[in-house]
């Protein structure tokens, strides 16, 4: 009886893991985008160059992923000129912060669901 209830619990855990896995936010699941959102979560504002240095990414790569996050409404981007030099700054939006919190919660759910298996 105990064995049966144990296997039922394991099956339930696996189902939870599958559900949590399938409900993942694909926008920030990608490594570089997850890094950008995490870095902005502990800084009010980061410039393009600061993010590039921090994530060790190329201009093109960072630009593509930042645009994807901007399109999803997770980061806001401000562009201005200092003399003739363009200066791009990124901020995390409220939606972006909620998405990160939700992503961390998903990860924790996955860990709990697959513990001791």
């Amino acid at each position: 009886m105990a064995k049966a209830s144990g296997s039922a619990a394991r099956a339930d855990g696996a189902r939870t893991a599958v559900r949590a896995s399938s409900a993942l936010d694909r926008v920030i699941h990608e490594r570089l985008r997850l890094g950008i959102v995490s870095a902005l979560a502990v800084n009010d504002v980061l410039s393009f160059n600061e993010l590039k240095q921090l994530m060790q990414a190329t201009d093109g790569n960072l630009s593509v992923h930042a645009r994807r996050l901007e399109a999803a409404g997770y980061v806001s981007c401000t562009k201005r000129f200092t003399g003739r030099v363009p200066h791009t700054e990124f901020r995390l939006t409220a939606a972006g912060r909620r998405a990160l919190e939700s992503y961390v919660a998903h990860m924790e759910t996955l860990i709990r669901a697959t513990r001791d298996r």
Partner: protein
Amino acid sequence: MARPEYTPSGPGGRLRVAGEIRPGRILTDAARVYVARVTSPRSARRAALQVIEGGQRGNPAAQRVRALDNLQFIRDTMERAGSFTAISGLGMVAAGVVAVIVSLVAAGRPTIAGWVAAWITGGLVSTVVLLGAMIQKAHGVGTQLLSGPGRKLALCFTPPMLVAVLLTAALYRAGLPSALPGVWLMLYGTAVIAGGTFSVPTVPVMGGCFVVLGAVALYAPAGWGNWLLALGFGGLHLAFGAAIAWRHGG
């Protein structure tokens, strides 16, 4: 069970499993432990993940390792991107009060040795007060004092302070105690600027003020030394400590 073998090919190397792959928790732990001996913890997690996913993609063990890896990545990124905010403004204010008291005590000392001893004792007391306040603040905000930016701050702050200790002994033995206020202020300022790179912007600005004051002390009359130390270790700590406490919470 198959024993994973490490092949250093490419960044982070790769894991190769000799024999039949047995997916699941036992292999996960074995792979992680084995790789941890030969490479960094982060690449070990990745390599262990490759082994598991190579055996059976999407199994619960793989999902668990990947989830742990993602959380660790978020934590690492936040540590690298964040600044050290456990510098205690209130601790600085307390150190400033100690310095003002020490300056009054030191001014009354009849000998040079007594004056130096008073300031060294004051420096030690201030260090203990500041460290205690930082530990308390770090505990309050749920961070560890020596993790990420805190560790970098400590590594940058310590060398100039060790140089200050050595120079204090050398200048005192050479009969040049009048140079001590300038040296102390400038080296403390250098340490604060270097360490402050990993903290809030107010901290390196304070370091700069110490260096300027130290430069003044080097060329000022010897009689001004005690009061320039009071202005630096007392006044600057009080002013910047209050600003940090007000702007960054404690």
